[in-house]
């Protein structure tokens, strides 16, 4: 009996001690997290073709190309690990991607290490430069009006429509990089997919959404114009913000 207890204790101890204790994600542990939480949508091979994928719109992310929407890096680049952590932690509103806020941060770091294994871009590419976001100026009605001017000058209405409802001339025939039909976001919906904070909005049009028709306008929008555009979009959003 005593022997059994000692053996049981040793087994437990080995498991406990083997759990690792550093800040770098552990890929093997991440695989377990992935199998528990992620596989039904993102697929066993990380190709976005999990069991539930046929019933989702938008489709779950295919990790094999290193193409991710919400990043702090230039168009075409890999995201930062902190970008992935943010997406996993907050989830993606209006989609089937849940918020994994309750997951232990170590589990999130582990699963990020695992999903990096699906694309060799993570090992072969140089780290991408970080988008520098200047401090946000005051959100005034003048800023909102200037933002409207930026919206028109950048021709956002071509896809997002004149009132931002996603019904522009070019909105009907868009496809994403995988050939799936995709529609421009309705900016009046009340919550943004990739986060509704000012910085989240800034990043969307200054880095583009990789894998979608949404381009980066970092070459053509200046930072102060960008903040005006953020304030304009937030004014579209605010009218229809849904109560939870």
């Amino acid at each position: 009996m005593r022997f059994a207890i000692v053996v049981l204790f040793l087994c437990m101890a080995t498991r406990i001690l083997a759990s690792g204790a550093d800040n770098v994600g552990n890929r093997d542990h991440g695989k377990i997290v992935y199998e528990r939480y992620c596989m039904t949508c993102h697929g066993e091979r990380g190709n976005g073709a999990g069991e539930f994928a046929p019933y989702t719109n938008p489709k779950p992310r295919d990790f094999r190309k290193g193409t991710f929407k919400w990043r702090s890096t230039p168009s075409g680049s890999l995201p930062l690990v902190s970008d992935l952590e943010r997406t996993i932690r907050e989830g993606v509103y209006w989609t089937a991607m849940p918020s994994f806020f309750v997951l232990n941060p170590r589990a999130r770091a582990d699963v990020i290490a695992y999903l990096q294994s699906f694309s060799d871009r993570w090992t072969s590419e140089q780290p991408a430069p970080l988008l520098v976001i200047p401090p946000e100026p005051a959100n005034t009605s003048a800023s909102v009006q200037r933002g409207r001017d930026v919206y028109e000058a950048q021709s956002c209405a071509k896809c997002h429509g004149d009132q931002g409802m996603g019904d522009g001339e070019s909105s009907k025939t868009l496809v994403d990089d995988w050939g799936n039909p995709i529609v421009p976001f309705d900016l009046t919906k009340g919550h943004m997919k990739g986060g509704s904070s000012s910085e989240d909005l800034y990043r969307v049009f200054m880095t583009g959404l990789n894998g979608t028709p949404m381009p980066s306008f970092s070459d053509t929008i200046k930072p102060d114009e960008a903040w005006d555009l953020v304030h304009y979009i937030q004014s579209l959003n605010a009218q229809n913000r849904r109560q939870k």
Partner: protein
Amino acid sequence: MMRKAQLLFVMTLAFNLWPKPAHATPAFARKYGVRCTVCHEAWPVLNDFGRQFRDNGYRMNLGEDDPPMTDPAYWPIYALASPQYRFDLLKSHDNKDLALLRSGQFQQGTFVLGAIGTVGAHASYLVIPLAVVNGQTVGFPAGWIRFNDIANTPWLNVKLGQNEPDLPFSRIRDLDMTSNSLVAYSYHTPGSVSQFDMANDEMGIEIMGHNRGSGTRYSVNAFNVGGSPAQNTKFNTPGTYGHVTHEFQFRNGPLTALEVGSFASYATWPRNLTQTPPGGLGTDNLKASEKYGGEVHAWFGQFALPIHANFTFIQGRDDKALVPGGVRDGLFNGGFAQVIANPKLPLIVFGRFDFVRNRDQSLPNASRDFHDQTGYTIGAKHTFEFTTRAEYALFVNYSWLRVKQGASDLTDTTRQVLSAGIHFAF
């Protein structure tokens, strides 16, 4: 006197005899495209994600929960079944060859048909119209509506109806199918007429709140104690229960999370069973049994495949007026300690130690350890397949429970239950 106590004890045991339905809700798996293992440590035990989902009113809170956002082909219906072989052996220590109860048979186990989900942007519901346990039909064992995030804060949610209180460890979502464990929840001092079971679904109101992620939670229940005489005519046997918990998460080190909590219940029961006046039972007839205690949960190892240890301590007191012939308030200590290990996703094993130790007996002439209980339970469940649609698993449980002086001749009794079967959920 002793016989009456024995009889009451056996009745209470019998009440808890039949297998309780283990609750997992594949309806949510179908709705959100997740497997059982996202919400369940290994179903039916909830993990942090599942608990937060439940506290949010069974919603993911990403704009896709409400009926208008859901595919019309989705039906929030689920069904559970657990056909099993059950072997029961109750023996007295004095006469080891004579079994007080011996039965071994294939049973239907439980069958539950339920509906659960959101009714709108602000409310959720559950209704179980049908539960059949070994041929006995129980209509509407549970049904409630919950108003979520009142005043737009997760700290205020109100649930109305027959619902399970927020226990340190849920008996409905228990791995053990023998019903021969978690004895401290229903225990009363020997001789007490109260049939209040802390873990039962009770008809009443629950106010609960939580922070984001449900690391910190509180709940307060007020209810009419189920099974009370004339209970179904008015709110005449009030009870209340409260629970607070807080969880610490650790990023480094072998300890992944630590949760501490405390709870208390205060439930009345009419001491005079024969009196059922139309005007209701007077307050001098209603006497209280209390239970209060604390719990510690610890999770070790990988977050996604944890070893989960739980120690729950309960101290209980029954008013002496509840014990016919009682000379003092009965006081007892009890609780359970368990370890649940999840070595790989489809497999869960657990071991549990139950105990009740009387401190003050209410019955005169009862020795201090009269009806003390000690129990050991082990079990394993292996899930053959779990998808976003349904699952089926093999479970095996063995439980051993000793009751001091539990037999009519005051010798100890030992009850052993072996339960093995298939658990199927759709």
